[in-house]
């Protein structure tokens, strides 16, 4: 019997209309745990680097995390992996909600989609019965609307649906896959789904998921629950409100937005408004939010309430989560009311809440600068909010200028030319970043921004304070009950880290400590991405209920595989390195690994170079950021080393960097 996992993947070839249930190799679970790890293994094995994102040979994988469908609290992530039309690298976005557990109960760990359907279709998975169904009637329908129609026509209110909207159908490079209040939205994976002409996947499952050592497992789950309760009753002191308590930021519950509005940049990631947050604004926003948020809601098996049901007199009800209430608000230099209004529509169209507002603010800047003219934007209203709505409609339909903007700021700038590149200033690896523009370089964040394979800071940060605590007392109090650290020395780093003076950024934490801190933060995310545990109860947070001391036990009790701290750390490193290798094979090199030039005002090129050197070494990469043969061997990834050698990416057994690889290969 298989435990925690079902032991089967569903292979769907949309070109031929073929569906197969395929048993998986249990050894892969031991090596890669599951979720993102096994997704990456499949992409490495089956999608060669020549395959373009919009090719029938590209795969789109919906992988349930290993612990999804077990009682492990907050284990509900579906990890969607493919190759991104925007970055041309591996994209893996995760969605919460209810999809992954339902898929496990239907008897599958993953759905692997290949090919391209001749017509728009959707997939209906009902335990052993799986059908590809016509979706002609769903063309152009919103993502939530689609889910409703499907549930009704199947007469299955309990079916879980993941769908694309118009943006995905039209292959907008930052189209999302939407699932209720959750979405897998980074990297344009909705565009790949649209390219495959797959409108939605609906799933219903009523089978058991088995646990290897039940008594031990439930005991651990109960401990996690208890600690969650404790953590919510004892917020961390000295940090912004959304970092003080658990949850994928409690944006729907918390109305105090001083931290975001004063610290994040407005417009096209340009302006800090350090005195924006006044009593007056606070009162107004509080009122708007309490009117709009009808109920706080959760994902599967999670007590935190990160989502909200939004009702607004001019809108259909929808569900929102996290920071999206502010991304449109701040990009348009508008207010919360506008944010709630446009986000609902954007969700129905299925676009990413980070990239979309930035693309629109970018377009408006180009207009102000005279690079885009009235001819390009004929018919656009005169007020900013109206313009945002207008642009959204053009983008999701790829109409006129929308066809260019639909490719994201990086590609759009190159298509537009005339100096537009300078306005696409906030990308890493061609992907729009959080609008943060800060003063002094932070070495930890420098490394995370540069090297994070997810290309999104929230998917690598966590565990360690974002900034030094103001006072010694706060530091001492913070480390007192910080048992999550992998080693006592991390406490010292916090104790010694000061806002000013000798032991402050950019030279403290030291390079060595910085490498360890970044590695720890990243590792915890890789574990979550394999188990399917939400980062909001785990890796994203300070003092989370899941940590390196209980996770090995939780995973082994559930799945029946032998795992200790070292074993789990090794598996996480294996997954991380494999994804690096996948991207390296697609051209990723050191030159791509840098934050936006203006991310910090004060930069330190020499220090930055040394940070990268040392971190690469720490990770077992060579100076170009390519995993060395030794480190690949150590991880049991010999076959990866051989492949890189054959392709001339690695030149010998040593850490010799290969020559420039075509980073833009595969781009038409």
């Amino acid at each position, binding site marked *: 019997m298989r435990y925690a996992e079902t032991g089967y993947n569903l292979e769907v070839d949309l070109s031929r209309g073929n569906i197969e249930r395929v048993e998986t190799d249990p050894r892969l679970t031991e090596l890669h745990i599951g979720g993102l790890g096994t997704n990456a293994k499949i992409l490495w094995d089956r999608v060669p680097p020549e395959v373009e994102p919009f090719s029938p040979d590209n795969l789109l994988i919906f992988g349930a995390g290993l612990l999804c469908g077990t009682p492990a609290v907050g284990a509900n992530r579906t990890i969607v992996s493919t190759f991104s039309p925007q970055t041309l690298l591996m994209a893996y976005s995760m969605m919460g909600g209810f999809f992954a557990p339902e898929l496990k109960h239907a008897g599958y760990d993953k759905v692997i989609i290949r090919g391209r359907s001749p017509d728009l279709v959707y997939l209906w998975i009902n335990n052993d019965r799986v059908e590809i169904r016509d979706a002609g009637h769903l063309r152009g329908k919103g993502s939530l609307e689609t889910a409703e129609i499907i549930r009704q026509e199947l007469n299955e209110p309990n079916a879980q649906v993941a769908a694309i909207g118009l943006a995905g159908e039209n292959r907008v490079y930052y189209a999302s896959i939407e699932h209720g209040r959750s979405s897998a939205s980074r990297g344009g994976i909705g565009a790949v789904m649209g390219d495959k002409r797959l409108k939605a996947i609906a799933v219903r499952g009523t089978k058991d998921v*088995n646990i290897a050592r*039940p008594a031990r497992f*439930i005991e651990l789950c109960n401990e996690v*629950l208890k600690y969650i309760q404790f953590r919510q009753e004892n917020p961390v002191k000295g940090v912004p409100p959304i970092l003080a308590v658990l949850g994928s930021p409690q944006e729907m519950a918390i109305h105090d937005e001083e931290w975001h509005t004063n610290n994040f940049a407005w417009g096209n990631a340009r302006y800090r408004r350090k005195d924006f947050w006044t009593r007056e604004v606070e009162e107004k926003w509080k009122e708007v939010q309490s009117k709009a948020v009808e109920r706080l809601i*959760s994902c599967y*098996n999670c007590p935190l309430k990160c989502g909200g049901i939004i009702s607004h007199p001019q809108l259909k009800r929808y569900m929102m989560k996290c920071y999206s209430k502010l991304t449109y608000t701040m990009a348009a230099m508008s207010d919360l009311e506008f944010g709630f209004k446009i986000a609902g529509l954007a969700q129905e169209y299925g676009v990413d809440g980070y990239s979309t507002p930035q693309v629109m603010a970018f377009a408006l800047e180009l207009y102000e600068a005279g690079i885009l003219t009235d001819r390009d934007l004929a018919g656009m209203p005169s007020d900013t909010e109206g313009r945002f709505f207008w642009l959204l409609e053009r983008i999701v339909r790829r109409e006129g200028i929308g066809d260019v903007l639909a490719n994201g700021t990086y590609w759009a700038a190159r298509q537009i030319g005339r100096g537009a590149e300078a306005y696409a200033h906030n990308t890493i690896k061609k992907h729009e970043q959080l609008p943060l523009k800060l003063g002094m370089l932070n070495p930890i964040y420098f490394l995370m921004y540069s090297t994070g394979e997810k290309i999104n800071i929230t998917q690598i940060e966590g565990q360690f304070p974002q900034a030094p605590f103001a006072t010694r007392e706060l530091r001492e109090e913070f480390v007192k009950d910080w048992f999550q650290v992998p080693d006592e020395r991390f406490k010292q780093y916090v104790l010694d880290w000061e806002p000013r003076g000798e032991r402050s950024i950019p030279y403290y934490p030291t390079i060595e400590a910085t490498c360890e801190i970044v590695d720890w933060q990243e590792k915890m995310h890789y574990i979550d991405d394999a188990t399917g545990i939400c980062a909001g109860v785990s890796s994203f947070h300070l003092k989370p209920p899941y940590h390196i001391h209980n996770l090995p036990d939780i995973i082994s009790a559930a799945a029946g595989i032998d795992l200790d701290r070292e074993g789990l750390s090794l598996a996480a490193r294996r997954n991380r390195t494999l994804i690096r290798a996948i991207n390296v094979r697609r051209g990723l090199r050191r030159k791509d690994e840098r934050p936006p030039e203006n991310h910090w005002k004060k930069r330190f090129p020499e220090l930055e170079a040394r940070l990268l050197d040392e971190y690469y070494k720490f990770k077992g990469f060579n100076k170009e950021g390519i995993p060395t043969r030794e480190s690949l061997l150590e991880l049991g990834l010999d076959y990866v080393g051989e492949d890189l050698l054959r392709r001339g990416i690695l030149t010998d057994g040593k850490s010799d960097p290969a020559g420039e690889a075509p980073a833009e290969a595969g781009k038409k």
Partner: protein
Amino acid sequence: MGVLKKKKVKVIKIDLEKCNGCRACEVICSSFHAVPKYGSNNPARSRIRLIRDPLKDIFLPVYAGEYTAAQCMGRDKYIIQGKEYGECDFCRASCPSRDAFKEPDSGLPLKCDMCEDDPPQEEPLCVQWCLNKALIYEEREEEVEEEVRPDEVEAGLKSLVDKYGLGKVVDTVVRLSSKG
């Protein structure tokens, strides 16, 4: 006529306003009642069901009550503060009209037992796992007449007899027991 006896009445108060739709109650109920205990998990076997329709703001946990052989002659529809609930939403019966409160494989009826356990649990499992306190457990004493209730096997068999007829059930039992 039965005898008057003191009886502990177990009550779970359900506060719909507090429910966040997480289905933790379903998860832990099905896990607790699995054989072996906690050995598997499957909300489709849970004795509590969350009727969840977020776009209508409907979040309604319902507990499995008695098995019934026939569906109702008519249906009720509740509208509460403008929210229209489904025709069978508030009903606790394991009934032929729907899949809820039946084992997904055998179709045998499920019933909430308020989590009988040895040693006894302080609170039913669903209550323990509902950190949002949408489910609140209370006990009180009442004097009641003792009645003889069918045990679980009997209720299960009765439902099979209703579904397949006595002859078929007897045949199957004989065939199974001869296989050893």
